[in-house]
């Protein structure tokens, strides 16, 4: 039987300070890699807009590499030290990476940035690439900014943006993992809003 006496914050295992310092330490350890992955993201978006047919394979492979990298370096190695549920999430990053690598390798990832879906996808990818600015908007140090390609949230959001631009029914199989990650992360941020350091 479900116990409805639990609040969302009851599932929060760490303080906001520890959470945000985790991104600072991650950026410090990897710098300047976050800038490089961000640049790759900008290049990928530009390629989709300018030469979609030539970019499809490489974008899928790029996303595959970044999902594998973020899943291992951030979710498994870093986040799981303060949140044991992250250890269960990390393998799903590997699954998403494998799926993207397969469609990229087979050349089955078809992108079309035109129309309403194209606009929506481009906006979502742009939002993900601009994610580091949120640190400044919310008064946190830029050193703890979350970058596409090294932090999970902007990586998942950008992936959703590219998926929106992708054609074919098989693309639906790629949605659940980034969507579930965004849900889990959103709930964490929501719970942290109720808790002081």
């Amino acid at each position: 039987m479900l116990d409805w006496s639990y609040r969302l914050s009851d599932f929060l295992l760490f303080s906001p300070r520890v959470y945000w310092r985790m991104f600072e330490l991650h950026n410090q350890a990897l710098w300047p890699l976050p800038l490089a992955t961000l640049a790759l993201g900008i290049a990928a978006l530009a390629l989709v807009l300018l030469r979609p047919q030539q970019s499809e394979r490489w974008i899928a492979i790029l996303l595959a590499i970044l999902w594998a990298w973020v899943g291992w370096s951030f979710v498994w190695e870093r986040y799981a030290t303060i949140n044991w549920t992250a250890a269960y999430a990390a393998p799903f990053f590997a699954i998403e990476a494998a799926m993207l690598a397969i469609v990229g390798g087979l050349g089955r990832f078809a992108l079309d940035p035109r129309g309403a879906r194209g606009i929506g996808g481009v906006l979502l990818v742009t939002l993900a690439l601009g994610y580091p600015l949120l640190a400044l908007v919310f008064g946190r140090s830029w050193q703890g900014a979350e970058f596409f390609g090294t932090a999970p949230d902007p990586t998942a959001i950008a992936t959703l943006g590219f998926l929106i631009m992708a054609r074919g029914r098989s693309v639906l199989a790629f949605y659940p993992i980034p969507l579930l990650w965004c849900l889990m992360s959103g709930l964490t941020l929501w719970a942290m809003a109720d808790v002081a350091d």
Partner: protein
Amino acid sequence: MAIHGSTRRGVLAGGAALAVSTLASPLRAQTVQIAQRAIPSTGETIPAIGLGSWITFNVGDDLVLRDECAAVMAAFFESGGRMIDSSPMYGSSQPVIGYGLAKLGAPPVFAADKVWTSGDGPEQIEQSRRYWGVPRFDLLQVHNLVTWQNHLKTLYAMKEAGRLRYVGITTSEGRRHDLFEEIMRNEPLDFVQLTYNIVDREADERLLPLARDRGMAVIVNRPFQQGDLTRELEGEPLPDWAAEIGAASWAQFILKFILAHPAVTVAIPATSRVDHVRENLAAATGPLPDEAMRQRMAEYVEQL
């Protein structure tokens, strides 16, 4: 008339600076004796304020924050504290405690932990012990009654073999009190751990009297409702009569209310701040309220 400026920040403004110096110096002997409470099953006494580790000690591999936790532990021991409580559920809290204990040169800790798994209890307990770096735990508790029959068997066997001193069970925030009570009635527990504070007083009705009847020590968790209670009261003035029981802040007001209950053995507030841990331990010095005063305290908080 009321005492203003009674927030933790206001009362203890200079305390944070002690964090740095505390780590740099060896542990000093406490100057003020904090209240000691007897564990009913053995008569052994322990300080009435312990240290929880839920959330506050889950800092992962962050060395800066690990050192801050070690500073909190140093201040805790220096002020006369002994019981530290943790759980495998608390993320990295166990290795962080182990880091602090090693850094402080293995101070005399009363090591209280929990077993929390539907799988292999002994394996988890051994992993916890390695994280702490202690030869054995003083107290092991079944966390939130998870698989409690199996785990109690394990804990009794460990106690029998001399690899554990005390056995207990835990719950929090009023959950599963019926089953908790049933286990208390039927099992030879040394400790029970539950939530009790000036606004969460459900345990007053059955569990606390039963603990006294059954000769079980009581550990009180979440005395400040994970900080919600002290945050809500922060802007409110302490009543002037708080001085009669030596409470200089809402935290001390709440802790004194808890410690004055005759069934309570130890309260285990968690904190990541050196000034707060000193303030919490100071609540176990000086006078405690009598029953009439406790009633007055609860009524005062309720009307705020």
